[in-house]
């Protein structure tokens, strides 16, 4: 995860993307958890609670960006709206699934539930990276 964040940061810098501060501040810390904190050392639960709201905000802001600049972006590439529409259609269910899996794992702490939660978090992280690539494409054309 640390490498992923660092790589994304470099990509973002090089692409000149206007990244929302929430994405950056919301990335899960790679520091060790406190033994006495609310997560009681549970890294998966902590990562889920750090990544999910960050991804949601990132998607929401990307959709607002696409709506605000639709005409210009459509001229640039039809792919950006089509990707945004895919998020509009599919992300709410993915978010709901992540929230449900969070609650299930928080209640059971079972290994199988931990794996399912980790898997959906990975999907959310990949969505963020995909959004960055589209924003980079737009930013290269001066749309920010």
């Amino acid at each position, binding site marked *: 995860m*640390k*490498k992923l*964040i*660092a790589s994304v*940061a*470099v990509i*973002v*810098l090089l692409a*000149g*993307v*206007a*990244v929302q*501060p929430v994405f*950056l*501040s*919301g*990335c899960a*810390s*790679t*520091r*060790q*958890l*406190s033994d*006495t*904190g*609310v*997560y009681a050392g549970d890294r998966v639960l*902590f990562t889920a*609670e*750090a990544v*999910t*709201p960050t991804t*949601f*905000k990132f998607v*929401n802001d990307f*959709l*607002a960006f*696409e*709506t605000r600049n*639709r*005409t210009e972006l*459509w001229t640039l590439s*039809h792919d950006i*709206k089509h990707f945004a*529409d895919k998020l*509009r*259609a599919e992300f*709410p269910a993915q*978010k709901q699934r992540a*929230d449900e899996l969070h609650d299930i794992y928080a209640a059971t702490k079972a290994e199988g539930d931990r794996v399912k939660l980790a898997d959906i978090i990975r999907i959310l992280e990949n969505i963020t990276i995909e959004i960055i690539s589209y924003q980079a494409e737009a930013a290269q054309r001066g749309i920010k």
Partner: protein
Amino acid sequence: MDKVLMLLLQALQVARLGNELVAVLKPTVDELLKDGRLTPEEEAAYRATYTEYRATSPQTLLEPQWRIDPDPLTPESTP
């Protein structure tokens, strides 16, 4: 990797490329470079953010940016 990233950020600042972005990214880089454990207070802040997200996100999904509109008309699709 962290040191490389820091050097890159410094190089970008020197080159005056994306200074605003460097400023925005710095907290994340700083966080990546921190040692030690999160404090209970820092963990509580993450929990509070998550709790707020769970409370507010359903309403956000109803906002206009989540509506799927028809594709804009293009010259080739115009009758």
